[in-house]
Each structure stands twice: as C-alpha cells, then as structure tokens.
C-alpha cells in the first residue's frame, strides 16, 4: 500500500518535470544561407559544415549555457572548463538573452577566425571585460586567468601554486596598463597587444582552422 503511494508521488513529480521541459523546447531557425554568407567571412560550404555540427549538438537551433559548457568540457577532459565556458558564452551571447543562436555563433567565429587583428583584439577585450563596463580591472582578469588555469586540472607539472594566477595577472597588468591606474581600457589593450610580437603571431595561429 505504501509502495503504491510512493509510486504515485514519483509519477506525479515526473509529470511535473515533463511539463516544464515542454515549455522550454523552443525551436529557432537561422536566417538564410546567403544572408549569413554576406554577413560573415565564411563561404557557403563552410557555413554548411558549421551548421551541421551545430544542429547535431543542438537540434533546437539554440545553445544554452549548459549545453555550451558540456560541449566545451568535452575538449578538456582533465580539468574544469566550466568557468571559461561561462565567460565564453557571455562573450558569444552579445544580446545577453541566455541562449546563443546560430547567427551569433557564426558571427563570433567569423571574427575569431577570419577577422582582422583589430576585430580579434576587440573581441578578446570583450571577453575579458566580464561586466561589460568597458574596462578590465584586476578582479576580472583574476577570474579569467583562474578559469584558464582551472582548465588544466589538478595533475599538472609543475604543480600549480596558490599565487601563480596572481603573478600572472600582475605581469599582464604591467604589460597592458599603461597609465598604471589599475584598469585596462580598450585603447591601452589594443596598443599593448600590437606592440607584443608574440601576441600578434599567436593571433594568426588559427587562421586556417576551418
């Protein structure tokens, strides 16, 4: 008898969850291929390949943060990529709606892979600027750097020490913060990066990823 009660309750809860799921099942279709081709630097073929992969993982046509994190985590099995994915997601989600449509995805990828140096740097600045106030302060940078170190995982050589991220951020700020006011503006960032050959070279690294 008690088993029956328990069973009925469990079913009831499950039905509730199903109702909730149904409401979030939204479908979105991207704009036409030609439009996207015009807006981005990808060819039709590349867009097709991208969309196929996108639709495979996200049949509903939009990526939410959870899925985004899961997908990104698959590439970094040893560490915890969730924080960096979180920041990435918010960089991709320009309209802050909480979901990334294919157009946003492709636009961002177009900048990252086929954009000019200026565009790439601007995008990166946007990534670092967590609260999107136009300035990067030390706390934001700290978060980003920690997120990057988290992706490495626990088992590293040499072992990650407590203040390594902090030192890293300090170096960064020394390089980027021209007027030493504790924040990095977009212009400072752009200028500093363009002065650094390493960064310039590495930005060109992923030119041919597609």
């Amino acid at each position, binding site marked *: 008898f008690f088993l029956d009660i328990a069973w009925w309750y469990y079913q009831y809860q499950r039905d509730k969850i199903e109702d909730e799921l149904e409401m979030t099942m939204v479908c979105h279709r991207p704009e036409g291929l030609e439009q996207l081709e015009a807006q981005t630097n990808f060819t039709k073929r590349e867009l097709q390949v991208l969309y196929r*992969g996108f639709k495979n993982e996200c049949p509903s046509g939009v990526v939410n943060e959870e899925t985004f994190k899961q997908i990104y985590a698959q590439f970094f099995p040893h560490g915890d990529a969730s924080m960096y994915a979180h920041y990435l997601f918010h960089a991709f989600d320009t309209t802050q709606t909480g979901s990334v449509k294919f157009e946003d995805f492709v636009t961002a990828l177009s900048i990252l892979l086929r954009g000019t140096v200026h565009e790439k740097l601007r995008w990166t600045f946007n990534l670092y600027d967590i609260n999107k106030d136009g300035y990067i302060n030390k706390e934001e940078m700290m978060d980003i750097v920690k997120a990057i170190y988290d992706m490495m995982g626990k088992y590293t050589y040499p072992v990650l020490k407590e203040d390594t991220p902090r030192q890293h951020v300090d170096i960064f700020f020394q390089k980027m913060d021209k007027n030493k006011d504790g924040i990095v503006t977009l212009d400072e960032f752009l200028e500093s990066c363009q002065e650094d050959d390493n*960064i310039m070279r590495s930005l060109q690294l*992923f030119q*041919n990823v597609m």
Partner: protein
Amino acid sequence: MAAGVAAWLPFARAAAIGWMPVANCPMPLAPADKNKRQDELIVLNVSGRRFQTWRTTLERYPDTLLGSTEKEFFFNEDTKEYFFDRDPEVFRCVLNFYRTGKLHYPRYECISAYDDELAFYGILPEIIGDCCYEEYKDRKRENAERLMDDNDSENNQESMPSLSFRQTMWRAFENPHTSTLALVFYYVTGFFIAVSVITNVVETVPCGTAPGSKELPCGERYSVAFFCLDTACVMIFTVEYLLRLFAAPSRYRFIRSVMSIIDVVAIMPYYIGLVMTNNEDVSGAFVTLRVFRVFRIFKFSRHSQGLRILGYTLKSCASELGFLLFSLTMAIIIFATVMFYAEKGSSASKFTSIPASFWYTIVTMTTLGYGDMVPKTIAGKIFGSICSLSGVLVIALPVPVIVSNFSRIYHQNQRADKRRAQKKARLARIRVAKTGSSNAYLHSKRNGLLNEALELMGTPEEEHMGKTTSLIESQHHHLLHCLEKTTGLSYLVDDPLLSVRTSTIKNHEFIDEQMFEQNCMESSMQNYPSTRSPSLSSHPGLTTTCCSRRSKKTTHLPNSNLPATRLRSMQELSTIHIQGSEQPSLTTSRSSLNLKADDGLRPNCKTSQITTAIISIPTPPALTPEGESRPPPASPGPNTNIPSIASNVVKVSAL
C-alpha cells in the same frame, strides 16, 4: 571525445584566442592541415539499399570497418560506391551509430544475426546505448542458455561409449528416461514410496473391531501385515540408497545432498525400531521417530518436477522469505505487547502473558480468527482490528515476489522442455534434408555411373538417362566426387540391382554408414583367420566391398581413364590374396598413418606394407577422416586380436 562534437573543434580552437593576450610565451605552431579534402558524400550500397553519408561521419570511428581503409575492399569501381552484401535493416542501426554516437538494438532483430552484423562491421556490442542495453543483454543471456542446453544434451548423447558401469548406473538414476531398466526402477520406487506413505496413514485409522474390545487402529489389529509391508518398503529403499551410494561419482557430496539425507531419515526409524524393541524407556522416543517416516513423501520430489521447482523457488526466494519472517515477527511482538497491556485490565482475560498473546496475534494477522482468545476491552478491540488489518498487508507484500519467481522458473523449465521436444522434430527434419541431398547425389551418381557402365557395356540407347541436375547440384556433386577421388574411397550404392551391374565400378561410390560399418566389422572379423578363400567365397559381397575399398586406392587413377582395365582389375581382385606383412610393419603402418588405435577394425584396409612390387598402395591417410568420424563400436575386440595374428590378410589388386 564524442563524435558529434568533433564538428565543434573549430569553435574550441577559435575560442583559444582568448588565451593569447594572457600568455607569456609564444604558442606552438599549428599542425599543418594536410590537403584538406572537401567533405564528400559517399554512397554505401547495402544489398541494393543505398545509404549516403559524409566521409567524415564514417571517419569518426577509425577502428571499425567503415571508418578505416578496410572499406576500400568493398569499393565497386564501376558504380563508385561501396557495396556490402549484408542486411540493410541492421546496417541502418550501424550507420546511425556513426551519426549519433549511440548504438541501438532493435527489438525485432534476432540477437545472433545482430551480433554477426556487429562483428562484421567491427563494432563492439558493449557500446550499445543504455536505452537498449538491458534488452540486448537479456536476449543474449537467453540465447546463451539455449546454446548451453543444446550442448548439454549433445554431450549427453555423445558420451555414451566411454562410461563405466558405475557411471551408466548413475546416469540411469538421474535420468530415468535414458534406458528402459532405469524407467522400470523409477516406477517401482515410486510405487513403493506411495505404498509406504499410504500404509503410514492407514495404520492410524481405527478399524472396526470385534464387539466388546476397544476400537483399535488398523496398525495394531493387523500388525503383522503392516510390519511386513513396512519391511518390504524399507528393503527397497535401503537397496536403492545403497545403489545410489555406490554409483555416485562423488560419494562425499552425495552423502551431503538433501535427497540422500531424506532417504536416510526415511529408513532410519525402521532400523532403530528393530534394534530397540520392547524397551519401555525409549519406546516413547521411538514413537516420535516414526514421525520421520512421513519424510518418505519427500522422496517423491525426485519423481515430480513441480515439487523440485517449488523447492528451488523457495530456495531462491530465501531473502524475500526472510524479510517476510522478519517483518511478521516484528509485527507480532508489537501487537502482542499492545494487546497484552490493553487487556490487562479486564478480568478473566485470556491474555495472561505476552507470549500467550503471540498466539492471538498470529491467528489474527493471518486472518484465521479461531476465536479462542478475543479481546474484551474497547482498547483491546481497537488494537485487535488494527492488528488484523495490518496483518493482511504485511503478508501480502512478499508473496507476489515469491509467486513471480516461481512463475519465472516454471516457465523457464517449460521452455527447456519445449525446446527439447522441438529439437527432436528439428533434427528429424534436418536428417531428412541431408539424406535428401545425399540421395540426390547418389541418384546423379547412379545416372552417371550407369552412363559409364553403359558405355562400357556398349548400350548406347540407355545413355541418356536425363541429367536433370542443376548447375549448383552438379558443382556440388563434382565436389563430392573430388573428395572421393582424393581419399581414394568411395561410397557404396545401396541398390542390389545396381551393385550387381556396377560391381566392377564399386570403386567410387558412396557407402552409406551402416553398410560400411557392418562390412568393415564383418570383414575384419572374417579375415583374421589366415584362410582367405573360404571367407571370400562365403561372403563375396562383404569382401568385395573391402576389396573395393582397397582397390579404390590403387585404381582410382586408372579408373577415370581406363574403364576397361577397371573391369579386369576388379575381377582379378576377388581372387588375389597376398600374405601380408607381419606385426611390426602393421604397427609402423599404423603409426605412419597416424591412425587411432581403434582403427584396428580395418587391418585389412591398411595394406600399405606390401613389399611386393605389384602394387604400391598409397598409404591411406585419407582413411583417417573416415576412421575418425566413425568410431567403431566394438573396438576393444579387434585391437587385441591384431597383435596375436602373425599374418595379416592383405588383399591387393593387380593392375
């Protein structure tokens, strides 16, 4: 990394730009993109149904057939597609695996067919998705059980010749249907068990008595008769137990087994009664011992499968039974305590103590309600009603589990029985089909032979007997023919008319099994004595077969080319005997032939040591396949005979 997210790798790499400004050192070089082919569609033609997919989809799993270069073996240049001559239904599942990364098992598919397909495509079944994995494992287990059953029964049938007397006896005890004697024994013991149980029961029934004396139970009135009956039964049981003990493969294990304990307990009271008769002190204990005679009824469990299943079920539901017992005990104690204290106040209450209340609680919880103890106070009545209500629940809980277990085991048994029954029909069908095909071969041979014979005889009008065999059949027959030629043996056509006519051409005919064995045995038996001609004359047919077998070895080559010489040779064959080589050569011949010792049946056939230059009989290693496939039943006999015979009859044919 799951296959699907491989498409997201460009995104992940692009996102790495975010690390660049933070990095202090230069980045490593990107791997050179080897000539990137544009992703192309490839066509997979599976038995006519065309599937198309991207090449990269298939390359997600490079250690499977489709993902590796192995599929190039199936590439059809003309149609520029990959052709697989396999089941398209299962291929659908396989291709979906590449697409989605999840392998599903469709319920309508046969498990062994599915396994075969997976093995072909190089996919491990372990990666079947969770959604279908349980179903797959269940089906696989059932299939394995079926195979085990088949193997077991096969083994049972094949191991007959090598059992000792003791083992045959044990088998007879365990499986009464194996031999008539065992069946008789089985029924006799069953009858005596029934007799014993009935006498136990009837013993206590009061029979009518002579007026004036007290009514006696039958046991005391006809005590002699009952004693005789009891003695007889116990005799039978004792003998049976001792026989089982003798035949058991592991006596220690047998003694510990349940059935043997029951047997012992069933017959002990009698012997104890014999030993201690008329001893007043222990007669009370002796009477109790007679109770154990009722255990004889458990001996029926050997006879009844249902009883065995019930016992097995109870054993397998031990945990549920334990739970039932435990919960009952808990409830009994609780309610007994409550009832005791509730009824304490009332006068002349039957609930004198808590253990006394146990009886009430049990009777109430099992809804028996004898009414010998009833609560009188209101509180007692309330608690009593709660007790009975909860009793129903507590008892009803584990019972369905036990019932379902019993049902499952019972159905399993039924399935096994059904399989066994169907197996007989299935084997019969297979045998019919086999003999049908072999008959077809014989028939065609007959036609072929007749044709050849008729060529020999020169009667052309009967030549066209109608070669109605299809291409496949003719190829098959050709194959069998090649086998015959290879082995130098042939099969005997079981047709007197034909054998008369084609006695000269017995060289390459297929013998059917019984004739062969019979011939072999008889011929070997007869050819042991050195006198050859009597044996020859007395059994021309047999010896000719043996001869023919040997002559095949010699004349198989000329046979095909020189029919005329064949005739001649056969005629000469029946009259020529040559004293063969002695023992050592025989043994060496045997060893050189690498034959088993039980091929002693064919000493005459192994005439490889003829030193006469007339014939060189090729050593018949080809005999071994036949030798191995037909274990001669009476192997011990001829084997012992061989060494004792100095000479060996060797029949050769002169070319």
